[in-house]
C-alpha cells in the first residue's frame, strides 16, 4: 500500500541551539493548546554545547525498557565528542525514552513522549518546531512511499507499556481496575 511519509529534516550546520523548537513543541502539545510552556515536555530536545560549537536537535522517537550499550564517543562536525558533555552519559544522540536518562519523559509522570508530527485537526501546514525554526535547521518534507501495513502504538499504549515495565503487569491491571471502580462510584 501507499503511505504518506512525513519527515522533519535536521541540518546540523544551521542549528544554533536557540531552543525555539522546544518552546513551540511544548506549547503546541499543552492542553488546551498553547496554554503552557515547558521545554522539558518538548518532543524535540536540543543538545547544545556553545563552546564546543555543537548543536544537535533530536526528536523523541521510541520507548524502550532497556538501556543499550551505547557509545561513549562519536563524531559531530568531524570532531570526536564525548557524550558526557551533553548529558548523554554513555550514549549517543538518540531519541529513545530509556531508563538511563530523563529525556523524552513527562516531567511529572515519567511517561514516555515522542514526536507526533503535530498531527491535529485542523492540520498544520508543517509541524510547529519547523514553523518556528526561522534559520531552517528544521525543514519539513512529505512524500508517498510503498509501505507494509504496521500496527502503530499510540501514546496510551506506549505509556501503559512503560508503566508495566516499571511496576509489573499485575499491579497496573489492579490499579486500572481500582481506578475505574472509583470513577464509576463517583459518577453515580
Amino acid at each position: 500500500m501507499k503511505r504518506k511519509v512525513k519527515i522533519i529534516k535536521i541540518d546540523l550546520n544551521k542549528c544554533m541551539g536557540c531552543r525555539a523548537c522546544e518552546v513551540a513543541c511544548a506549547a503546541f502539545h499543552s492542553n488546551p493548546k498553547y496554554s503552557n510552556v515547558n521545554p522539558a515536555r518538548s518532543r524535540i530536545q536540543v543538545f547544545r554545547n556553545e563552546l564546543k560549537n555543537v548543536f544537535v536537535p533530536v526528536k523523541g522517537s521510541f520507548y524502550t525498557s532497556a538501556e543499550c550499550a551505547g557509545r561513549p564517543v562519536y563524531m559531530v562536525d568531524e570532531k570526536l565528542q564525548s557524550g558526557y558533555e551533553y548529558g548523554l552519559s554513555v550514549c549517543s544522540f538518540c531519541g529513545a525514552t530509556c531508563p538511563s536518562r530523563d529525556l523524552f519523559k513527562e516531567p511529572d509522570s515519567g511517561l514516555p513522549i515522542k514526536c507526533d508530527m503535530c498531527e491535529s485537526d485542523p492540520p498544520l501546514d508543517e509541524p510547529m518546531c519547523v514553523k518556528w525554526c526561522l534559520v531552517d535547521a528544521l525543514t519539513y518534507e512529505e512524500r508517498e512511499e510503498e509501505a507494509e501495513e504496521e500496527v502503530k502504538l499510540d501514546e496510551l499504549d506506549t505509556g501503559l507499556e512503560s508503566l508495566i515495565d516499571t511496576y509489573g503487569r499485575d499491579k497496573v491491571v489492579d490499579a486500572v481496575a481500582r481506578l475505574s471502580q472509583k470513577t464509576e462510584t463517583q459518577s453515580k
Partner: protein
Amino acid sequence: MRYAETGYNLEVDLSTGNIERVATDPSMTEQYLGGLGTNARIMWDRVPPETDAFSPDNLLIFSSGLLCSTPAPSANRTIITSISPQNSLFGFSMMGGYWSPELKHAGYDKIIVRGKAPDWVYLWIENDKVEIRDAKHLQGKSTYDTAEAIRVEMNEPRAQVISIGLAGENKVFFSSIETHRGSASRLGLAAIMGDKKLKAVAVHGTKDINIAKPAEFIEECNKVLEYIQYRLNNPIPGVPPILAYIGSPQEMALHDEEWHLDSFAWGHARARRKGFWNKEVEKQWSDAMESYKKRLISCYNCPIRCAGIVEVPGYPTYILKCFTKLTYVMAAEVDDLDFGFQMLSKAQHYGVDGFTAPQVMAFAIELYENGILTDSDMPGFPKDKKERFHWLLEKIVRREGIGDVLADGVYWAARKIGKGAEAFDHNTIKKHEQVPIKLGMLNPIYYIMWSTGEKINITQIEGQIPQMPMEKHIREEFVKDWIQIPTGKEERFKQFILEWGEEGKNFPFWPPPDLVAELVEWQETMHYIDDSLGICSGVSSFPIKPPYHIHNLPLFISYGTGLNIDESELWKISQRIRNLVRAHNVRRGMRREDEKPPEDHWKKRFPDYEQKLMDEYYKYRGWDLRGIPTKETLEKLDLDFVYEDFVKRGIHKEE
C-alpha cells in the same frame, strides 16, 4: 494560578544561609510588570540611600522579565539590580542568554540575595531544591570555566549558569557578570557578587509557565516571527548596514565597519580616524573574523543570531557580539582585528566590561605618556601598544599595583592619582565611562539622552529613529509603513523624518526643544518596557522599525498575564518605572549638575541653548528644574510614597 510569571521569588541570605520561597503580590505586576520595574520597587522599599554598595544590606536581585519563558520570541533577558559600587546610584544591567527562562521553569521570577557569605559559595537551584554550595575550589576560575565546572560537578549539562571571573572576585568596579551568551557589564554589579562572595548562580528547571489566553498569545507570536523574517529580508534603505537590520548591530555577520570606525573616537576617546577604513583593511579584517568565527548563534527562543562563537588559536573560546569587537582595537590604536579578538578572549574569561575596560587602559597609557604615571608606578610596563594592554588587564583584574587604582575606573583613579590626572577624566558621565564618541555639531536629541540617561549607556536608551537625516528620495517611502509610532504622534514623527535635513532644519536648533523631548521620551520609554518584560531591545526598542512596539506589546502582556493593559496604561507603567528609578538616584544625591555629557563630546557647543533644551525636557517629563519629579508627576503615577519620602528627606518642601 498566575500566568506568564511564577508568582514566587527566592530570598537568599548569604550571611545566615537562610533560603525562603516567597509568594509575590500580584498587584506589583499590575503596577510594575516585572524585571526592572519590580526590582526598582523592591529596592526602593528595602535599600535606603544610606546603604552602601558593599554593605551586607545592599540587595543583589537577579530577575527574569515578565514575558521570559512564554513563547514570546526573544524574551530571555536577565535584569540584575543593586547599588553600583562605581557611582553609588541605582545600578541595573541586563543580559541575554538562557538563564532567565531556566529560572522561571525552576519556579521563580527573581532571586533576591542579601548578606555576605563567609567564604566563596555558589547557588544551585533545581526546581524546589535550592542549595548554597561551597565554591572555594572555583575561586580564580574564569567565568566560562566556572560554568562548565558546575555543570560537571552537578552532572547536569542543561543547567544555565551566571558567574564572575577574577575581576568580579576582586571587586573591579567595571567587572561583568557573564553567562555563555551574554554579559551584564555596566555599573560593576559583578563586584557586588564578588563582595558577597557569590561566585555563580546555576539553575535547572522543568516546571510549566502558563499563558492566560493561549490562542491569542500564540497568534501574536506568529505575527512577530513573520515580521522578523520580513525585516531580515528587508534592511532599511539609506542607513548604514550596521543600523539597517534588527537585533544587536550585526557585527559578527557584517564586515562593513566604516560607520563605527569613522564616527567613533580612537585611543582614550580622543580623535576619529577618518579614512582608516579602506578596501585593504576590509579584506584583512574580514579574513580574520571569518577564520575565528565558528558559528553565529542566538539567545533563547530567538532567530536573529547576533553573536558569534569565537575561537582564536592559543586563547580560550568565547562568545561575542556587537561593538565590543572593536573597542580594544580602537582604544589601543592598533590596526589589526586579531589583537581585539585575543584581548576579548581574556576579558570575557576574566569578566570585564568591554566598553569601560579598554578606556581605562587607554587612560592609563595617556597618563604614562604625559609623565603623570611613571615607571616607578608601573614597573615593567612594556613599550609595545598591544603588550601594554595585556599587561594592564592582568594588573587590573588582580588589583595588583597600579591595577588596584585603575580597577575603580577612570573617575576615581584620576582623583587618587592626582598630579593633574583629573584633566584626563574627559569621557565619563555620572562617574561611568561612556561610548567613545567625539563629534562636530551638537545633536540636541542625543545631548538630552547622554545627559539624562540613567542606564548609563547610550545604547540602552536609543532607538526607533535614524541617527542622521535620510536622503530626500527615500523619506516618503520610509514613513509609509512606520507602524511603530505611538498613537497620536504619527503625523508629528513622520513629519520630523520628512523635514529633517531641509533648509534650516538641522542640528543644533532643529528639531525644536518640544519635539526633542517627545522623541527622547519615546525612545527611552520603549527600553524601560523591554527591561521589565525581559524582551531583547534588539527586536524591540533598539532598531529602526522593530517587530515589537507600543501597539503589540500591550497585547503580549494582556494575553500572557490575563491583565487588561492597553497602550496608554502601558505607557503610564513605563513612566512609573522610569520615575521610580530616577527617584532612587535623586535620594542618592543625583542632581542637574550631574546630567551633562563630556565637555568635548561635541566640538560645537551652545551652553545657553543646551540649558534651554534641558529646562524644556525636564518640564516635559514632569520634573522640576533640578531634575526631580514633581509632586504632581509622582501622584499622577501613583508614586505618592516617593513624594512622602522626598518630603521627609527635605528634597521637596511639603505643599
